[in-house]
């Protein structure tokens, strides 16, 4: 965590100075999603439903990418995947 700034250094009125993409919520999770790529039909349901935006569609690679830096392990993706391609497993140390 960087040094906190003095009142002279920060913008007035609380205008925020950092984007939250710098705040990794991924360490919140207990369970993590594990994908079976063979079952995935690229329906993008998981991409639609992830509250964190941690499941990303990469059109250039034609792939879905799971960003563990933001995944909180809620399990919505596993619950909603129509082909059950995702399962939630305990995150290893």
């Amino acid at each position, binding site marked *: 965590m960087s040094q906190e700034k003095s009142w002279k250094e*920060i913008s007035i009125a*609380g205008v*925020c*100075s*950092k*984007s*939250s*993409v*710098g*705040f*990794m*919520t991924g360490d*919140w*999770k207990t369970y993590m999603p594990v994908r079976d790529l063979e079952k995935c039909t690229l*329906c*993008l*349901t998981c*991409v*639609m*439903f*992830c*509250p*964190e*935006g*941690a499941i*990303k*569609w990469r*059109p250039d690679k034609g792939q879905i990418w799971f*960003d563990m830096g*933001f995944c*909180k*392990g*809620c*399990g*919505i993706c*596993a*619950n*909603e995947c129509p082909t059950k391609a995702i399962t*939630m497993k305990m995150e290893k140390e």
Partner: protein
Amino acid sequence: MTTQEWKFTAKDIASKPDLFLSGHRACAGCGPAAALRLIMKATRGPTIVTQATGCMEIVGSVYPYTSWALPWLHTAFENAAANASGIDAALKAMRKKGKVKQEHIDIIALAGDGGTCDIGLQALSGAVERGHDFLFILYDNEGYMNTGIQRSSSTPTGAATTTTPAGSVIPGKLEKKKPITEIMLAHDMEYVATATPYYWKDMLTKVRKGLEVNGPAFLHIFAPCPRGWRCEPGKTMEYSKLAVESCVFPIWEAVNGKRQLSTPSKLIALAPQKKKPVKDYLAGQGRFRHLFTPQNKHVLDEMQRFTDERWERLLQKCESSS
């Protein structure tokens, strides 16, 4: 509103950059957060968002971090609609003097059920009556979740909250859920609709329709809260779907007062055997657990009866509209 509906695929939406960014502090499995992330994908150009105090406002704006990739204003709890009024008036005035570069800026006011149905109702009604050009989106998680799951007027009957606990004498909230969309419909707005994130295509289409209105529009989004409802975080979307399938939260839209059911609810109207019992929706939610006891069975029965009655009334209203 344009008559041509906005066409999009999952890939189109998935390729759009997020405007409600990752790194927000919502609980795992948060329904409103999932809904909000999707809602922001339906914006069509320069947009300003103003928000009432509540879960979604707090999680995205913990100084110095912000999860908002567009201009965003929060002032207080009861005045999201008044904020929108001020922004709308300012843009109109400044545009007259050539001080606004953009040809059009959409204004979205976001609030939870507290900031809409209770403390926010006055400002909302006032802003709508004055005809300001904004879309008001209510993300309804059926309680004052951010302050610790207290009851709101939008909490359904029978739900246990921290201010309507399921006690030995009183089984949770006794009052009915305030029909906020009926109230907003009575304001003669061009567009009023209900939606829920499981049916995301329907939800996004409605957001876009609301934005296209030249004047006020209201969208009621049903967004399950696993923390407050005490259900599994992975089941958020499942409950979103069950609410529609059991007719606890029917989804529909009203254009200039003409109401019609949206496809998921219409399918049930056409095939009533597909309607799920309310019990199926309530099961697994900790806030309704106390209803599954012999002494509270009457509450469960009353809930089914009331849901059926309200559903029938809705069907009649939709029929008389067409």
